[in-house]
């Protein structure tokens, strides 16, 4: 009886310690949705995968700006005036356009305010987009494939002999 109690007690303590360690390890907690539902069912698989459109075609600022940018509504519309204009999602797009309202996309990859991430330097370093963003071309809905934790950034920087000076990324 005593032995059983002892074992149970030890087990509880062990579990608690492990849980606390895990909790500590993942602090600060990241409870954001890795694959949020978007207002429009935009498929990267269709655009980038099946149709083979290059990332930089839409995210054109990635080459020259810290922000990669997303295509403006006008750009979406320009294509879809001719391409499958009758698909239900395209109609939704057109409705937004008519109301002159931007689509409230949900951000999947977001970095805190104190991090400086220049897309252009990473593109110039010949880093494939998939290195951080995963195989977008196979995703119907975008799923975040990286933890975006500092350790993750640091690993890659160390691997590629990029600068690990704090001020390279922190602002």
């Amino acid at each position: 009886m005593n032995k059983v109690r002892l074992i149970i007690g030890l087990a509880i303590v062990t579990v608690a310690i492990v849980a606390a360690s895990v909790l500590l390890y993942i602090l600060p907690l990241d409870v954001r949705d890795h694959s949020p539902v978007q207002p429009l069912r935009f498929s990267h698989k269709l655009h980038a995968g099946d149709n083979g459109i290059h990332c930089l075609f839409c995210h054109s600022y990635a080459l020259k700006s810290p922000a990669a940018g997303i295509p403006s509504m006008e750009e979406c519309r320009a294509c879809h005036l001719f391409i499958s204009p009758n698909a239900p999602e395209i109609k939704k797009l057109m409705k937004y356009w008519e109301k002159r309202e931007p689509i409230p996309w949900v951000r999947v990859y977001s970095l805190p305010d104190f991090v400086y991430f220049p897309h252009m330097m990473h593109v110039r370093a010949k880093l494939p987009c998939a290195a951080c963003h995963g195989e977008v071309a196979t995703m119907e809905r975008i799923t975040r494939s990286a933890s975006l934790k500092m350790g993750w950034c640091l690993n890659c920087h160390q691997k590629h002999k990029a600068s690990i000076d704090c001020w390279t990324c922190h602002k």
Partner: protein
Amino acid sequence: MSEPILPAAKSSSQLNDEMLSSLRTPTWSWYALALFLGAVVAWGLYAFGYMLTTDMSCTGLNRPVMWGVYIVNFVFWIGLSHSGTMVSAILRLSRANWRRPILRAAEAMTVFTVAVGGLFPLIHLGRNWVFFYLIPYPNQRGLWPNFRSALLWDATAIFTYIIGSSLFLYLGMLPDLAVARDRSSGWRFKLYSVLAMGWRGAAREWAIFHQASTLMAALIIPVAVSVHSIVAWDFAVTVIPGWHSTIFPPYFVIGAIHSGVAAVITLMIIIRRVFHLEDYLTPLHFDNMGKLLLVIALLWSYAYFVEVQTTWYAHEPIEWEVFSFMADKYAFLLLFMIFANSVLPIVALCFKRLRRSIAVMLVVSVLINVGMFIERFLIIVPSLSHKNMPFVWGTYRPTWVELSVTAGAFAGFALMYTLFAKCFPMVAVTDVRELEAQKSVVRLSRTRLQSSAEKE
């Protein structure tokens, strides 16, 4: 030693009764005290919560005085913790028999003062909620703390010290817990049974126990010295005039013992009164503690003289500026501190009659602690106020938040102590009774006896 350390002719169970009197059911006055202390602690917590939820502007801190009462508290409490374990360890190693009734009070004080003191660096943080950045553990940031910082030395030292002194306290309490176990029932019995670990007092257990106690005492002394040296290094390794001084570590250690011993005396007086231990804590004890305190007061005065004298004589401009600012703006505090820490104890404790007067000892010991609190304040605040760049000199005045947290800390310590006294033997029962046992030697044909009792 002609004077008896123990009252004569009391049976073991009478001794047990008297020394474990604190474990009896609490009276209403105990509840009132606990409630009052709890209220003060709650107020301190409220003040801290207020600071946590608004911002640090509710403190008196500023540039250049970025450290204030919180750090004063930190140094003060860590200082207090010294006497406890260290004095107890020294006395244990030197086998001073009069130590026995004092030990528990001192060791328990250490644990609680370290616990209170250790909280202050965390309270003091600007962003308390990210305190875990200070803890070395594998994390997703790929970044570990900077061990160059004296604050991490502090953290490791205090961690070591709090573990060590808790173990030391526990170790000393082990046989007492067994006694308490045997005399209790209900939840107390369960608690003591668990804590006593099945101690039976077998001869072999006692033998190992004694060796372990000696070893622990030997180990804990260097830890205690290192802890306060490191606290001193927080200041001494900086480039702040008034802080950057090689005398600081020994000076801090001496100061720590000074305040610690005084605190032990204060606590002894209180315990003696509250738990009616007049028979066990006799003027002899106060006499001996008084002698100890006298020596330490002399040492402290010497260290302080050396510290000030070098500044004074060298007259290095910025150091001198800091000193003269302190002597000007804080003249009253400075004089009071010198009186309370040095003049009063040295004069008073020279006289046996005064040493044996409980009232005098109470006044002296309380004043020493007030003085030591002031001393920490005078080390930290004036130096920061008048640092190297005169254009941005400043002043500091603690606000209600800092004072409330300080009051909460004092109450918290008292509360923990009160609770501890209600739950655990406040006097080292077996240790005291051991004297009895060692004196009465059975002479039987098969034994060759070494009379350890007369080594006093």
